[in-house]
């Protein structure tokens, strides 16, 4: 055993810098992608403007409502500078402009929604429609509140004069009911299963890691292709250890090293990006992709073909993941998604079918090599 380990060390030591780079690349790439994605998500807000002709509570609430949305960045202009806001719009520095009239609060209180807000947009205003919908809903909400208050007060005056209720009480009660009953909360579903209600993450770091690890692992095993097609392989027929045995030991060593790196990756991603995954699922995923990479590297005739196969397989897996919901809905067989190794990993499941397949292929290869020659 030690002889084989020493021999492997001799053969691989010159490739160590490259292999080490491949080993840490998935973690670095994942951290970089998530960092860029998060900063882009935070930065990507549609610039809009609100022109205010009066300083009123309703105007402030309207601006606050627009700003609280995830996609809008609202700039406030006073009435005298409405021209400046429109110029910004003409120069495409703003996506849309909302002009609140001088009697905005009065009209809200009075329920006069017709032509309440003047809006401007351009042929490049891609977020105008959702912004307009948001503005309309904010106005509707405020008007609804006033209508409710007026209606309840009217009822009180007519029937409940012994228990006086004021406007603030009614508004507060309306707010409490809205919060308690989650009137605006949406329940998300994924592949037929309801979400646990937690905040939906932007981009799961483990998806990024799973794909980059898949392709990089195949790249890492390119030395298997080089050694398998090398003329020197013929000499193993005269050695005390067969080439198959030597390469299986290599597989075990590489998998052990990669599992250690995966352990470090797990801790880093969990701590820095707060994304968890099942350790058993991570272990199984590593075994499966290493087995796939090893068999593929043993099968192809040149490293270039291995790289091509790696890219093609990664794209195929990614495409399959994207169309999986459609396939499942068309066929009604949610079991199909169980055949996708990355999906199974992300769903914290043990990928038994792929594990058995890889194990069988490995055994076939060992059996075939042991019976060669003579």
């Amino acid at each position, binding site marked *: 055993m030690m*002889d*084989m380990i020493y*021999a492997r060390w*001799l*053969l691989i030591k010159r490739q160590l810098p490259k292999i080490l780079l491949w080993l840490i690349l998935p973690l670095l790439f994942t951290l970089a992608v998530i960092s860029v994605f998060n900063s882009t998500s935070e930065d990507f807000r549609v610039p809009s403007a609100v022109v205010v002709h009066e300083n009123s509570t309703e105007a402030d609430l309207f601006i606050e409502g627009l700003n609280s949305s995830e996609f809008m960045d609202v700039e406030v202009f006073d009435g005298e500078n409405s021209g400046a806001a429109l110029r910004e719009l003409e120069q495409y520095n703003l996506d849309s402009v909302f002009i609140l009239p001088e009697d905005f609060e009065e009209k809200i209180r009075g329920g006069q929604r017709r032509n309440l807000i003047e809006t401007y947009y351009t042929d490049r205003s891609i977020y105008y429609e959702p912004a307009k919908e948001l503005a309309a809903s904010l106005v509707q909400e405020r008007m609804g509140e006033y209508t409710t208050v007026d209606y309840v007060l009217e009822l009180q005056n007519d029937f409940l004069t012994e228990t006086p209720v004021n406007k603030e009480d009614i508004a507060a009660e309306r707010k409490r009911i809205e919060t308690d009953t989650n009137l605006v909360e949406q329940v998300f579903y994924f592949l037929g299963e309801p979400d646990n209600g937690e905040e939906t993450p932007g981009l799961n770091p483990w998806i990024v890691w799973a794909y980059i690890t898949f392709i990089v692992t195949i790249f890492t095993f390119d030395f298997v292709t080089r050694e398998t097609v090398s*003329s020197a392989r013929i000499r*193993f027929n*005269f050695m005390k*250890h067969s080439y198959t045995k030597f390469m299986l030991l290599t597989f075990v060593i590489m998998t052990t090293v990669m599992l250690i790196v995966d352990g470090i990756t797990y801790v880093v991603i969990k701590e820095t990006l707060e994304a968890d995954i099942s350790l058993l699922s991570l272990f199984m995923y590593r075994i499966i992709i290493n087995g796939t990479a090893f068999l593929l590297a043993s099968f192809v005739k040149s490293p270039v073909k291995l790289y091509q196969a790696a890219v093609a397989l990664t794209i195929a897996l990614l495409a399959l993941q994207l169309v999986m919901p459609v396939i499942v809905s068309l066929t009604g067989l949610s079991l199909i998604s169980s055949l996708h190794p990355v999906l199974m990993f992300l769903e914290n499941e043990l990928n038994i079918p792929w594990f058995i397949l890889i194990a069988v292929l490995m055994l076939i290869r060992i059996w075939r090599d042991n019976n060669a020659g*003579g």
Partner: protein
Amino acid sequence: MLEVNSVNKSYGKRHVLDNFSMSAEQGEIIGLVGENGAGKSTLLKILATLSKPDSGALYLNGKPYKKYFKEHRKLIGYVPQDIAVWEDLTVIENMKFFQKLSPAKKSVQELKALLNNIQLSRHDTKVSKLSGGMKRKLNLAISLINDPVFLLLDEPTAGIDLKSRIEIGEFLKTHAKNNDTLIIYTSHDMNEIKEVCDRVIVIGKDSFYRELLADYIK
């Protein structure tokens, strides 16, 4: 020591070896000649246990190949036509690598001595930086790590300079004599065959090599 009885080998419809028989004793150096495609390399691969004959029987030290091929491999040294070494490693690293996996145990000093015997002194040079002649010498040296009693060489001097060719030839003669090793090797160079070999076997039906051989014997 070696006995080959009526060996046949075909690739599809093409007969490469047709009832080929021979025998050889320890210490002999036998040259195999014949035109390209006559079956020299095929015969060497069969003798090296790397390929199976379609029919016929082979014996090494009285033991049949069919049953004892794994045991025979420990006694055989095979020098393939391609340079079967790791290009990224140095000369001595190549020797260490194959020594570690070989059934025989040899110290680094013994490996260096083997290289020196074959006049390959650049132990710490990367193989990719060696000349063709040096690579051929290393190719041979690696095959000798397990002290084979039966050495098979497939065109061991192909494409190298005259000096290296002579050095390899001299080394093989000395090695066969000192170690009582049976050596069979192929070459297209009749001068080399004449210089090195005790006996020549012509493979194939082409008469060119038979006539050439007859001229040399005269």
